């Protein structure tokens, strides 16, 4: 065993100096990586998982970051073990990209936009291998072939913006693999990709690992992905490793309450729950008398949590039957929206992309209609066309019998407060210069909800509590809040106008699974207490299935399948839907 040791992290502490003081991002972790294995690292954002492994390559921005303590011993195949943290900037450059390579989360931004893809891979080969340019190019093309990029010669000459996300990630993998590294650190390499692309990339990484005999450290917030790829797992929480072990042990017999909650908070595929469990159901955090943090276990499994119940298939079908008996709230008929892709010399359109192509469906009062599809399928466009944020090419949208497409400006204005939208990115959709209170009150002022500012204020304070925030958040600014809290603020802002109907456009996609569970629960609670109806748009079929009564599957602007959510999941008829479902990473092998 000792002989196969590849990397040892010993008592690693990492600190960040911020305006509020020193933050301990990593509080003494110990970990070993063995030759030929894939080690999965799981944790939510802020758990210190990325920081720990950026330290391996000394890639932490310093200042503000600082490795306070610890050793990272690398045992190369030939030669003496080295402490990577003790190396100078010059010395570590020999190891970066050569012995230890990295793949990052955002393929969109991880390649330099002004250089061709081929050049960026050549660069690493030229640097570490000392070969001629021609040899480097030949090796790069070979790598492109290996990572299954179509037409390597074309990709070699392309700029990053000319490739899709999956292709860019393949280029990144080729770059990381270019010098046959012994260790490959993959930091959330598939989080930004569609599930079907994710599946292919995971398969590719598995194949390459075998072929090149490398070891992989795979960092992610999603346990489902870990189940697909890892041999061993370490679970990180608040800068500590709370549990580590073989992947089947982690899934079959999780010991730590945090691991249990992580396993439970992802929407289940095989059955239906009324609510999702969250971390707080499983454990409490308190400080003991020495000021040390303690985690106290509360529930051992989902069965111990009272508020969570399974919904039987009969119950959910009954609910759908009752909902669809009513007059529809929203009727969409033959709606189309085309974008011009080419114009002739006089600016007349020559070619179109049919983002929404002849789509019809109904939404009934009190219902959640799910809309699922991969990026580029037109689901976001559809949401925006309904709200008239984008012009429709043809078709009708009736809201309570009124055709939205024909409404005058003022009538539309009046209807806008009834129909709200919650966007994907909680970071970009709040104005950083407005306090939370101002942000929520602004649309109320525009739409004249309540007559006086003090009445509005009372309502906003009420709303803040309803979405799980505190009244004293009213005067704070967005940067003081986490992603999950910001999404709650966005939800409160949408609710401020007392809408009847909300379009949630990828509203939880940017959030960690544990935070996602909380926000989904909130949306479900609000549906009951405010009698809302939703269109819930997401690329994640498991989330859509959990949230929706009925579901539409969209591909290339068309609706390819529709029906009760559970039906579609269990008996998909369309090939596209089947692919989408089989690509969802799940711990299928480890059913307890």
């Amino acid at each position, binding site marked *: 065993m000792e002989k196969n040791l590849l990397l040892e992290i010993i008592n690693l502490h990492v600190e960040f100096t911020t305006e509020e003081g020193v933050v301990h991002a990593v509080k003494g972790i110990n970990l070993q990586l063995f030759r030929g294995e894939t080690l999965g690292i799981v944790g939510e954002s802020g758990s210190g998982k990325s920081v720990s492994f950026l330290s391996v*390559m000394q*890639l932490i921005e310093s200042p503000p970051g600082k490795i306070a303590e610890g050793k990272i011993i690398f045992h190369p195949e030939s030669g003496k073990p080295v402490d990577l943290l003790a190396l100078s*900037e*010059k010395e570590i*450059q*020999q*190891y*970066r*990209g*050569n012995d230890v*390579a*990295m793949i*990052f989360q*955002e393929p969109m*931004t*991880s*390649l*330099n*936009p*002004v*250089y061709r893809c081929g050049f960026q891979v050549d*660069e*690493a080969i030229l*640097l*570490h291998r000392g070969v001629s340019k021609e040899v480097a190019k030949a090796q790069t093309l070979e790598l492109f072939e290996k990572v299954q990029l179509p037409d390597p010669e074309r990709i070699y000459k392309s*700029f990053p*913006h000319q490739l899709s996300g999956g292709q860019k990630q393949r280029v*990144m993998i080729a*770059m990381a693999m270019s010098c046959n590294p012994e260790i490959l650190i993959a930091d959330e390499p598939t989080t930004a990709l569609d599930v079907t692309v994710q599946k292919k990339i995971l398969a590719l990484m598995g194949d390459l690992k075998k072929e090149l005999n490398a070891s992989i450290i795979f960092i992610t917030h999603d346990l489902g992905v870990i189940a697909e790829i890892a041999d061993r797992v370490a679970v990180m929480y608040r800068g500590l490793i709370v549990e580590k072990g073989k992947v089947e042990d982690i899934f079959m017999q999780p010991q730590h309450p945090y691991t249990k909650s992580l396993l439970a908070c992802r929407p289940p595929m095989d059955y239906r729950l009324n609510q999702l469990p969250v971390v707080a159901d499983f454990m409490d955090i308190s400080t003991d008398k020495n000021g040390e943090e303690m985690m106290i276990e509360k529930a051992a499994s989902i069965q111990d949590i009272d508020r969570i119940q399974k919904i039987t298939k009969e119950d959910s079908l009954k609910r759908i039957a009752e909902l669809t008996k009513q007059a529809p709230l929203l009727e969409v008929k033959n709606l189309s929206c085309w974008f011009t892709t080419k*114009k002739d*010399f006089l600016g007349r359109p020559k070619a179109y992309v049919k983002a929404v192509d002849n789509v019809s469906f109904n939404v009934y009062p009190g219902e959640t209609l799910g809309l699922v599809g991969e990026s580029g399928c037109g689901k976001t466009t559809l949401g925006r066309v309904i709200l008239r944020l984008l012009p429709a090419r043809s078709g009708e949208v009736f809201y309570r019998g009124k055709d939205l497409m024909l409404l005058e400006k003022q009538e539309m204005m009046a209807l806008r407060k009834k129909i709200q939208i919650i966007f994907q990115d909680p970071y970009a959709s709040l104005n950083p210069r407005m306090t939370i209170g101002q942000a929520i009150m602004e649309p109320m002022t525009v739409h004249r909800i309540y007559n006086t500012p003090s009445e509005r204020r009372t309502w906003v304070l009420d709303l803040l509590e309803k979405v799980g925030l505190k009244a004293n958040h009213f005067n704070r600014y967005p940067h003081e809040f986490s992603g999950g809290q910001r999404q709650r603020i966005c939800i409160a802002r949408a609710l401020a106008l007392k809408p009847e109907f909300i379009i949630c456009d990828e509203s939880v996609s940017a959030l960690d699974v544990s935070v996602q569970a909380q926000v989904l629960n909130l949306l479900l609670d609000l549906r009951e207490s405010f009698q809302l109806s939703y269109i819930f748009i997401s690329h994640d079929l498991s989330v859509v299935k959990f949230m929706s009564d009925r579901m539409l599957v969209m591909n290339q602007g068309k609706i390819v399948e529709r029906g009760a959510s559970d039906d579609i999941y269990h008996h998909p008829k369309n090939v596209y839907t089947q692919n989408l479902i089989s690509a969802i990473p799940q711990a299928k092998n480890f059913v307890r």
Partner: protein
Amino acid sequence: MLNYILKKIGYGLIVLIMVVCIVSTIISLAPVDPAELTFGNRYDEETVKAKREALGLDKGIFTQLWMYLRDISPIAILADHAENKAKYNYTRLLPLGERALVFKAPYLRESFQSGRRVSEILGEAIPLTAILALTSIFLAAIIGIALGIIAALRPNTFFDNFAITISVLGYSVPSYVSAMILALIFGFFLSEYTGLNVQGSLVVLDDFGEEKYVWKNLILPAIALGIRPVAIITQLTRSAMLDVLSQDYIRTAKAKGLPKRTVVIKHALRNALNPVATAISGWFAALLAGAFFVENVFNFKGLGDVAVNALLSFDIPVVLGAVVFTAVLFVLVNIMVDILYVFLDPRVAVS
């Protein structure tokens, strides 16, 4: 690409015509009679009247404008006779009876003061200004980009704050003020040590009437003109670099094992250059157009000096000529920058 360039040139032409219209309207509103100016203090009514007619000053303002536009346009329809031939020196493209469609160099008319052709006057001044502008923008770009990079690599340190403070100061001082200060200090108080003059042009006539280049006369004007561009370029480079250095692809470049210098110069700077290129080209065009007051302060016989003197003596053809030249220059530099963007950043779509 060709379509893109043609479109930009089209917009540029519209800008040029509007500039000529606005400037000539303003000048024609000035309470002077150019015909009188031509003859100085002694003239009689008849000659002035004849001159007025020759200059077209008796016609309406729109007719005058039209005539000027026709004079500066390279392609025009003119009466085809010997007098015009001598005046415009045109090539006939298509005879149209008594008139002809012709191709010619833009005719900028003649100076009221000296009677010389405006194109000739400008032709003498422009090379001097061009050398001055090139020198100062070159210095400014090198110093500004270097300072900006160093400041961005050490954000919020003493050097960074120092560089920012100095550049704010440098930008706030008008260049003719710094010109005078420089001239006083280095050309007067310290001239024993520096050997520089308070005033002097690049080309001077020596005792034998021969033209002679005095390169040291370039130093002070180039520095005086360069101070404000340096300030702007430093700040823009710094903020663009700070932005770029926090990008993911910089981390990728470091993770490849590239040395810091390569990461900064090759991966970061290249991405940060877009706003900097805009600033450099804008200032370059402005400097080429004649740094009016600075040239005047140093008595540097460039375009600025010519234009200021012409303005003071209401030598309208020269002023208009300088303005037209400047406008053409700005339009050209802008088109070049637009094309440069396509090469600097492949994401700029050519459509």
